[in-house]
């Protein structure tokens, strides 16, 4: 017998057994910690998974580490600060919100495994604000199969809301890229009819949806469309292509890193068009710091680095300290935030956290997974909030905020060029918003009430 132990194959078996048993033991321990009860039945009775008399557990996946982390990893800190603020005021229907964030490093494989952990082990009631198009794509089927409410995906892809029959539990939040493209397209067509337009697009849903929107209005004016692949940091050929085509207005649908990269390349090439960046890529503070980092200090960063650039805006940001919403966020951050100052990413996190608290209020005291989805379809379009334009939620659409305004950045702050414009995907007309959403203010205590 002793001899056998020396056989490598036996070692394989022994190691397999040992490792498997370890895994199993871990499973046993964790389940006990979880407070008992296997929530595998999936919302049969009044109590949904993750919900108790006095608590609600929700989860999210964000890139907390890796290349996509700068900026984006601040979103959950903002959301957490707001949930803590609400908890300090007594929670929602007497329940404290427990917010579990997991790092996926912006890698869909990791998103899949952390979502398994959140849903199957942590038994979250809902996913709130999971970030990224390719990452969230990996789990949207799973969440809908399991019947987990998948609220306010942090991405403007159309797929989160244009087909509620396919994904009944998924809701978008920010304006989708197509309507952003439409609003920008119409603005340019009306105000700069002679501009030669170049498009600088991320080569996925983001760029495709936006291009579709832009071309509805500008098809004749577009002289070049260049695409970059996220992850490839050399955008020299694309920018040179735009320059060669003679574009004097560049509409860019890209992430913040690529705003900085495109600015640096244009500087090097002596290319000085009018830049128009998507809301996603135009955070002046972040781009400023990226600029000085990428250029190793040669370009002075700072929030004024994007002055003169046009962009869009759908929630008030830190550049508007007088806005009542921003004042609320500042108060929340001062009371419950971590180190560091309030940033636009944290404001983004707080804004969707606010919307989720509204959804919980609307779903009532008997909280179920189907109940909150129904409530959102019913009242979602009338919700007040920091967003400048109303949501589009209904039983036919789970798309988020319906519009935005065009602004020009001066001294790091946006100056309005248009009123808030709203529209929808497809041929829907672009009209001025008359809901008064951009003029509203948060309730006194900063916690939304049931609508």
């Amino acid at each position: 017998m002793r001899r056998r132990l020396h056989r490598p194959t036996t070692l394989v078996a022994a190691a397999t057994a040992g490792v498997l048993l370890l895994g199993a033991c871990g499973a046993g321990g964790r389940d006990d910690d979880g407070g008992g009860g296997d929530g595998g039945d999936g919302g049969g009775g009044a109590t949904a998974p993750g919900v108790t008399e006095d608590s609600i557990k929700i989860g999210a996946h964000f890139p907390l580490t890796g290349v996509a982390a700068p900026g984006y990893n601040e979103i959950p800190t903002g959301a957490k600060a707001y949930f803590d603020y609400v908890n300090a005021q007594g929670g929602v229907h007497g329940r404290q919100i427990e917010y579990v964030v997991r790092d996926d490093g912006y890698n869909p494989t990791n998103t899949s495994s952390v979502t398994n952990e959140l849903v199957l082990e942590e038994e979250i009631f809902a996913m709130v604000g999971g970030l990224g198009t390719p990452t969230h794509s990996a789990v949207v089927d799973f969440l809908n199969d399991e019947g987990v409410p998948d609220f306010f995906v942090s991405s403007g892809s159309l797929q989160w809301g244009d087909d509620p029959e396919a994904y009944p539990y998924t809701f978008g939040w920010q304006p989708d890229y197509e309507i952003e493209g439409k609003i920008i397209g119409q603005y340019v067509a009306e105000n700069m009819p002679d501009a030669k337009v170049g498009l600088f697009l991320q080569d996925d849903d983001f760029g495709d949806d936006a291009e579709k929107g832009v071309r509805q209005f500008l098809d004749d004016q577009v002289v070049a469309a260049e695409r970059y692949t996220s992850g490839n940091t050399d955008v020299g050929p694309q920018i040179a292509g735009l320059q060669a085509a003679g574009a004097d207005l560049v509409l860019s649908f890209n992430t913040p890193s690529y705003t900085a990269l495109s600015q640096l390349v244009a500087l090097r090439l002596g290319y000085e068009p009018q830049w128009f960046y998507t809301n996603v890529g135009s955070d002046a503070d972040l781009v400023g710091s990226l600029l000085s980092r990428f250029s190793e200090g040669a370009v002075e960063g700072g929030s004024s680095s994007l002055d003169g650039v046009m962009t869009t805006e759908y929630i008030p940001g830190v550049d508007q300290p007088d806005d009542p919403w921003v004042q609320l966020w500042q108060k929340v951050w001062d009371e419950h935030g971590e180190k560091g100052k309030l940033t636009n990413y944290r404001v983004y996190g707080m804004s969707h956290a606010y919307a989720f608290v509204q959804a919980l209020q609307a779903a009532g005291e008997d909280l179920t997974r189907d109940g909150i989805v129904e409530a959102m379809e019913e009242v979602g379009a009338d919700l007040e909030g920091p967003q400048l334009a109303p949501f589009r939620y209904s039983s036919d659409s789970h798309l988020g905020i319906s519009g935005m305004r065009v602004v020009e950045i001066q001294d790091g702050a946006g100056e309005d060029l248009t009123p808030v414009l709203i529209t929808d995907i497809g041929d829907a007309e672009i009209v001025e918003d008359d809901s008064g959403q951009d003029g509203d203010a948060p309730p006194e205590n900063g916690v939304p009430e049931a609508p």
Partner: protein
Amino acid sequence: MAALRTRASAWWAGSILGRHLLVALLGLVVVVVVLESSSDFRNLQLASMAYLGIAAGGLTVLTGLNGQISLGHGALMAIGAYTTALLLDDREASTPLPLVVLAAVVVTLLVGIAVGAAAARLHGPYLAGATLALAVAVPGIALYFKEQLGGEQGLRVVLPDIPAWVLDLAYFVTGQDLTRSRYVAYLAWLTLVITFVLLANLARSRVGRRWRAVRDDEVAAELAGVHLGRARVSAFVVSAAAAGAAGAMMALTVRLAAPSGFTLTLSLTLLSAVVLGGLGSLAGALLGAALLTFLPQVVTDIGVDAGLSDIRAAELAPLVYGVVMVLVILLAPAGIVGTVRTALLKRRLRRSAAAQTRTAGTNPTAPGTPGTPTTDPATTTSKGSTT
């Protein structure tokens, strides 16, 4: 009784295939027991461990037994995963799962032949460079053929419904209904066991001896009549096939084949699993895979429990992983399994040496001292490595 034992041990020593199958059977029993007694989430985690284990097993054969280094195994997994995704694009996809896996293996194998043929001409850093190019290029192919391969967003993988007979069988054996997560975990572990039996057999056969001969001394191997190129290509192809199977399992577990899942990091991760566990050892590959799968979550949980913020806790995992890696390389350069095995072997040598001196009775005053006959340990080692 004694006769039976002698016969059993003779069979154990004589029949390599029989031994491997017996171990595999035991392994399967352990798998069933463990999967049945763990939660859905653990099942999926174990499935991840299985696919990493399969790929690392293939890589450890290539690097440990044949001495070739590959930084491109993540790309080979991508090929297996994309093949699976293309065959399983909706629930009505009629290709049975075993065929899908087989197709993934075959396609990856063909790619392996092409890459292997090129790789056989290269050595050390050049080979690393060539396979590195593979790791960088393959995700690019998925981006370029956006229409067919889904671009950045990748292809969704839809797990077909579990066949009725599998459900019945599972219920008959275990008395529990088979969940989808558990089904995936069974598939992955079954594939792992089959792959490991095949790899273990190959490694102990003439083919495996040739691989080792080429690794140890090319000139000597060639003089002994081993065709260098053929041995290298065959090792690469076998290893690629394992990566293909791993890719198929990964696609089923993750439910997605996207370029960002198959970055260079994946290839390096596999290599680090192999190094952690111990080069050339299948047990080591499995151990490395287990560390890769469980360590990040355990560390993050510890971090959160210790009151760190989410971001800090998330940053802890790569740090601890790096520290573990450095420690293993410093303290156990042969990898965890390699070091344990060496230690066991040493102890055994010392004991048998002691036994020798005692039975010989020539010098009872110094039992087990170093300096006792060295012939015996030598024969034991050579026996250990050739059987």
